């Protein structure tokens, strides 16, 4: 059931959400200090190399090295995010959408890596959006260092709220549960569709078009919507059981896959028969 249309470029639909997130951050945080700018440039190295056609996996270490330097600086300064080390890390975090964009463009055609990368890109954009909102609400100066602090605070609140839900609380504040920015919500939806279409792209290059259209797209999207709605309904009453049910469903599907896809016994391997006379010739006959 392969589509005769090449939908592989659909992966580019992930880029708008990253671009929007990066621009929103940049416009909010200008003017940017030199250290933060260095962090952004370090984060931009893999994407620039990829666009210049000099894709080298070693370049991914440029942002990693900058991140390590920033962490060491912050630790040396007592852990405050508003210090120079915090500025560098804030710049790196600001440039994270650029690293993710390079990661989205880098995988080979039909690679499954695109799916988790899309998820990470959306989560990063949501966290950025929530962090900016928190920065504005708190009345703090819009600097990369303060943005880093807000980002960490949002992540911490999300994890804390999630832990409360699992612990039995009927409700908890989850900063990422709702999109605060409708544009970002639209772009995230677009990115998900792009990742999904990239999955639908044929994985076998010499594939032939099917004799009937694929129902995969509609069926799986419907299943996803129904499952999410069921989760929401159950979660409204008892979030713990909703999470448990979701986990059980996922585990059941994985178990069914493993059960059905058991490896068959290895086929018998034959070798070409050698001439009979050679078989009968003892290798040590000369001794």
């Amino acid at each position, binding site marked *: *059931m*392969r589509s005769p249309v090449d939908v592989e470029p659909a992966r580019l639909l992930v880029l708008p959400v990253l671009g929007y997130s990066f621009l929103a951050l940049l416009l909010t945080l200008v003017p940017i200090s030199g250290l933060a700018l260095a962090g952004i440039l370090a984060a931009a190295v893999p994407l620039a190399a990829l666009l210049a056609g000099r894709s080298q996996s070693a370049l991914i270490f440029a942002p990693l090295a900058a991140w390590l330097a920033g962490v060491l600086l912050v630790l040396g300064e007592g852990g405050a995010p508003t210090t120079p080390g915090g500025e560098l890390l804030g710049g790196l975090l600001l440039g994270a959408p650029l690293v993710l964009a390079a990661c989205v463009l880098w995988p080979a055609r*039909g*690679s*499954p*890596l695109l*799916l988790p990368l*899309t*998820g990470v890109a*959306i*989560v990063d954009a*949501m966290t950025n959006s929530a962090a900016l909102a928190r920065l504005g609400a708190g009345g703090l100066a819009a600097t990369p260092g303060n943005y880093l602090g807000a980002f960490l605070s949002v992540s911490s609140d*999300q994890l804390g709220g*999630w832990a409360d839900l699992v612990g039995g609380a009927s409700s908890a504040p*989850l900063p990422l*549960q709702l*999109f605060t920015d409708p544009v970002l919500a639209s772009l*995230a939806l677009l990115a*998900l569709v792009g*990742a*999904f279409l990239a*999955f*639908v792209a*044929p*994985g076998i290059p*010499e594939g*032939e078009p*099917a*004799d009937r259209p*694929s129902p*995969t797209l509609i*069926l*799986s*999207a419907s*299943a*996803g*919507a129904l499952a*999410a709605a069921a*989760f*929401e309904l159950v979660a409204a009453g008892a979030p713990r059981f909703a999470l448990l049910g979701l986990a059980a469903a*996922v585990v059941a*599907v*994985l178990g*069914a*896959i493993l059960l*059905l*896809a058991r490896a*068959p016994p290895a086929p*018998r391997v*034959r070798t*070409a028969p*050698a*001439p009979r*006379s*050679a078989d009968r*010739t003892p*290798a040590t*006959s*000369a*001794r």
Partner: protein
Amino acid sequence: MISRRGAGFVGAAVVGILLAVYTLNLIVLVGALAIFAAVGGELVYFHLATPPASELEFGVRRTGARRGLSPGATAEIALEITYLGARPIFAELRDLLPSTLPRDSGTTALKRWWHPGDRATIGYAVRAAGRGSHLVGPVAVTLRSPHALAWVQRILPESEEPIRVVPPAPIARSQRLGPALLTGMQGRLALRQRGFGSEFRSLRPYQLTDDLRHVAWKRSRPGAWQVREFDQENRQDFVLLLDVSEGMLAGLPGQNALDRAIEAASLVLAAVARNGEDRVGLLSYAGRPRQYFAPARGEFHFRRLAENLAFLQPVDGLFDLGAALDLLTRRLTTNAHVLAFTALDGPLAPVRPAHLKFRSRGHHLYLFPPNRAGFYPPLPEGRAGELALRWAEAEERARLGRSVAELRAEGIPVFPYDRRGATGPVLTAYGRLRAWGLA
């Protein structure tokens, strides 16, 4: 079975679920669940709807394949396939080829819908690269899920066939030489010698290769002819000594030093087979003696030697000419001409004492070393590696020159050969041996 791609997508979908659960955001949750449903649904549905491998019944009949090939020759292979299953399937059938039989033209695979009773044909040509017995097939039936996340495969039983890649068969070559018996000469190769022995030895059943003049008419009955055997004064024994160390791998596949040596040795075998009373033996050596056949005659002996020559492959170990000569000195009971095909990679110091002893028993050694500098076609000007190849060729030429000079100083005739083959120098040497007893 889940493919590597399928396992990757399952992992990716699970990571998506985890991210969605982390955010608990409706849009992300819908997207992640949709992708998980797509991946999981395809995998589960494929395994439920696909017939098990044991039910992928196909009938395969091979036509057109020759069972014997010469190195470098091509063979047309055709498969007539009939689907014997009960329900329609979309499957790919692929005839599995060994790397030693590369595809020359056509396609080895066929992917289509199969309905019960459907027939189709796969046709392609292979080129024989290296000597040996190679298995063409078996046929693999593969069913893949729409996005190649899972597959089911079955190897069709009894759908393979061996193809032997051998040098031009000595027996066939000798049959082509047949008419030349009337003239007694073919080229410079003396096939018959005057003066067969006159001392009666025994009677034996007539063989096709026997001279009609030796038929014992009074002892023969229709269908059971007998021939007289005589002790022959000028019978000569030949031993083909082959270096099967990895040093003989120099050259392109199917045209390397060992291939060329085997072609020449096969020619000697064919000539001996057609020549009255001569006998021929074989010793292959690498690290230790690998095979030894004492000089003998007879249809079975010649066929056995031809097959063993055809299937010789390089093995680990160094060729020690001195040790090989010591072995032959011990084993050979009558004077013999030893035609040695060796890269001369082993130590040459032990050759001198071994050769002195060898000569003292009346044996003669003739060396045919490959000039490995001449086993690779020249690279185009400016091509990467050209300089390295030239350097390696110069080094090899110098090494071979030193070895040849050292061996010739010992009185051993040496006839180097290159990728064009060793048949020229071998035929010259053999013709001289038959005519004058020395090359």
